[in-house]
């Protein structure tokens, strides 16, 4: 069908010699393109190459932009201070389109073509999980900044690490004591009906139970939904707290409709800032969130008690006191996650120095050196706060922030302890062969 129709619609062009030459030229260009250039082996003074699997396009693009800025800022500092093991660090960026198939291809490209030493920097869980088998098969260490529970679940493999950001299970669990003590004992959850929402659905109820509070209703909203009003009557009348984790563009509609539903007499609201990363908290329609609370991985707005390390980090990355790009107040950062890039790069530096890393032949040593790490002190290398690291599950644990929306800002009202987020390990990567 298409064959005939397409040719009827388009003007007939006879193929001229010039067109043939153009085609041949393009084909030749493909063959001698950068992909086929052989790369020399890394020398001892050659840079350490870190493959940065970036979400430059696709659904993760707004995160990807900030992950890239944070990465460049940290690498600049690391290089100014002498690099890693006396060698400069070079970041090689590839776009994964926020797609797991392309993600796996990109990991292979880093390992086999760019000859990178390690791969780093992935955020979206499905890209991490899709890329992990390739990293394991090619035996290239893969440091993700994803906050998913996938690494700690020990379902991936020995080469995947998450040392710079806590995982969602730990984050949710750490919220429970504060919610039970300050917001209320009867909690209704509203979450998107896919994996991100299911983490909250599954991990919050037991954590609240341990604090003497209860989830009295769970409302899952299909990912295709664009209007939410019809779900709100399902919220029990005796609800103290609505715990919401809606994500994506629909969040503005969600908040607006929730405001219309409740008016001024609403229960407490508690949410995860993931829904509003890279979104201005003062956007039209978000007024209803005033006075509500959010989890933040790291504060978006500058706080009065910010440490010098935090101030230096914000200045280096280039975000102002409102968490927007310096010089562009509309370009809101993904502050609650991107610090993980900074901290992960410093963990990589530490592990490479511990392992005496020289080149790809030392990748096994690097894995073992990373597994041997136990804690990271708060400071310029870890501005978000102190952390512990469990080498058996390749996951770090740290503090969380709870902030209140006041006067169009997010003000930190509580910092959790590391212990609030600790859970029993579900497995042990170190028993797997290298």
């Amino acid at each position, binding site marked *: 069908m298409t064959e005939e129709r397409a040719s009827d619609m388009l003007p007939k062009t006879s193929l001229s010699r010039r067109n043939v030459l153009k085609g041949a030229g393009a084909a030749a260009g493909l063959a001698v393109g950068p992909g086929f250039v052989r790369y020399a082996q890394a020398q001892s003074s050659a840079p350490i190459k870190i493959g940065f699997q970036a979400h430059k396009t696709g659904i993760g693009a707004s995160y990807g932009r900030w992950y890239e800025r944070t990465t460049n800022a940290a690498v600049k500092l690391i290089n100014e201070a002498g690099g890693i093991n006396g060698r400069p660090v070079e970041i090689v960026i590839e776009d994964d389109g926020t797609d797991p198939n392309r993600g796996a291809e990109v990991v292979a490209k880093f390992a086999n073509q760019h000859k990178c030493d390690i791969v780093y920097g992935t955020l979206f869980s499905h890209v991490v999980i899709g890329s992990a088998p390739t990293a394991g098969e090619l035996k290239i260490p893969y440091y993700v900044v994803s906050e998913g529970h996938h690494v700690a679940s020990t379902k991936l493999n020995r080469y995947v690490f998450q040392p710079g950001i806590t995982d969602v299970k730990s984050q949710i669990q750490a919220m429970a004591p504060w919610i039970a003590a300050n917001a209320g004992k009867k909690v209704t959850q509203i979450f998107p009906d896919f994996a991100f929402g299911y983490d909250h659905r599954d991990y919050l109820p037991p954590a609240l139970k341990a604090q003497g509070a209860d989830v009295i209703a769970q409302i899952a909203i299909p990912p*295709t939904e664009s209007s939410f009003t019809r779900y709100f009557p399902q919220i029990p009348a005796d609800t103290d707290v609505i715990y919401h984790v809606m994500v994506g563009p629909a969040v503005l509609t969600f908040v607006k409709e929730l405001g219309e539903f409740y008016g001024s007499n609403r229960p407490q609201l508690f949410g995860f800032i993931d829904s509003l990363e890279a979104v201005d908290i003062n956007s039209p329609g978000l007024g209803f969130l005033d006075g509500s609370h959010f989890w933040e991985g790291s504060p978006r707005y500058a706080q009065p008690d910010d440490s010098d390390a935090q101030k230096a980090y914000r200045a280096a990355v280039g975000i102002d006191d409102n968490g927007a790009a310096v010089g562009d107040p509309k370009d809101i950062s993904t502050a609650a996650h991107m610090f993980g890039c900074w901290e992960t790069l410093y963990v990589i530096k530490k592990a490479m120095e511990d392992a005496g890393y020289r080149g790809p032949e030392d990748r096994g040593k690097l894995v073992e050196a990373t597994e041997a790490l136990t804690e990271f002190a708060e400071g310029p290398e870890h501005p978000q706060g102190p952390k512990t690291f469990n080498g058996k599950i390749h996951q770090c644990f740290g503090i969380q922030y709870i902030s209140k929306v006041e006067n169009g800002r997010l003000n930190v009202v509580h910092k959790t302890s590391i212990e609030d987020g600790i859970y029993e390990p579900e497995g042990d990567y170190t028993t797997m062969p290298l």
Partner: protein
Amino acid sequence: MTGEEATREMPATPVPRRRRPPAGNRVSTGRVVALHAGVIALLLALQFVLPSYHHGVLARVLVLAVFAMGYNLLFGYAGLLSLGHAMFFSAGLYGAGLSIYHLGWSAPSAFAGGVISGAVLATAIGVLALRTTGVAFMIVTMMFAQVFYLTTLYFNVWTGGDQGVVLQQQARTIPFAGSTIDLTDPATRYFAALALFSVVLFSVLALVRSPRGRVLVAIRENEQRTTMLGYDTFASKLVAVVISGIVCSAAGAAYALLFGYVGSTFASVQYSILPLLWVLLGGAATTLGPFVGTLLMYYLIDLSNDVLAAWAPGWNFSAIGIVGIALILLILFFPKGLLGSIRERWVPWLP
């Protein structure tokens, strides 16, 4: 009905400028088989010379090209534009992947499980969707695929939902004659992908040159006339849907086994559009077009990134933009896809 009868009836299609010879042409049969065998021999030889990155890429492209070939069978030959083929690919992907993940099946039986899942799904979808034609067929297939996609999310406990699940390396091996074939080894993976590709390529070639394949083309050109000639067009179209579903699910099952990841991204609408693009790019209703299209698209995306990084560092322009421009140029100069246009202009015997 014999083959000769079928070929005699087929030239009834009222298409001008068609320079393709009838299927029974003996001279071209030799050339056609030689061409396809040559392509496979070339791919076999490439296994030994390609740098490791491109070697890995080609293994992946071969599997996805099988997906595109399955799509081409329905779209290129039978003229049925489906926007839901992601569900057949992912039926194979989940059929194979989940039977390994949850039931601990061996790789060969998981592959069979994936293909059977695809066949069953394609039969059911075919019976329902073929009650419609044209735009309605597109919409119905798209809706079924959407149902399939949402189902994979809904049964998150088993499927891992949008995050998906990983198949461990030790599960992706085949015990064979006292040793094991490790599908995660790059060379083995390449051979496995090439074997699947070759089998499907020659099966498709045999099918489209057979009387049944000619009936499919006849349906594409003029369904009413084909009905009038006494053919049961519904049955032919159903067979086409089922074979197409089987081929696509074989690609999905192979993907799960060879690359170890099973996730709902592959059931999303994007993976229904991609095979359409690959086929249009390479040439609809050509046997090798889907492979050419898949390969070209891969390197378009891959090289655009490299070219941008090398020539315009810091320039905030997505590689997708370059791919888009390249696609527009290709469609302008090769409106029937690469191989389709080559067939029209220079090589009329190209199947």
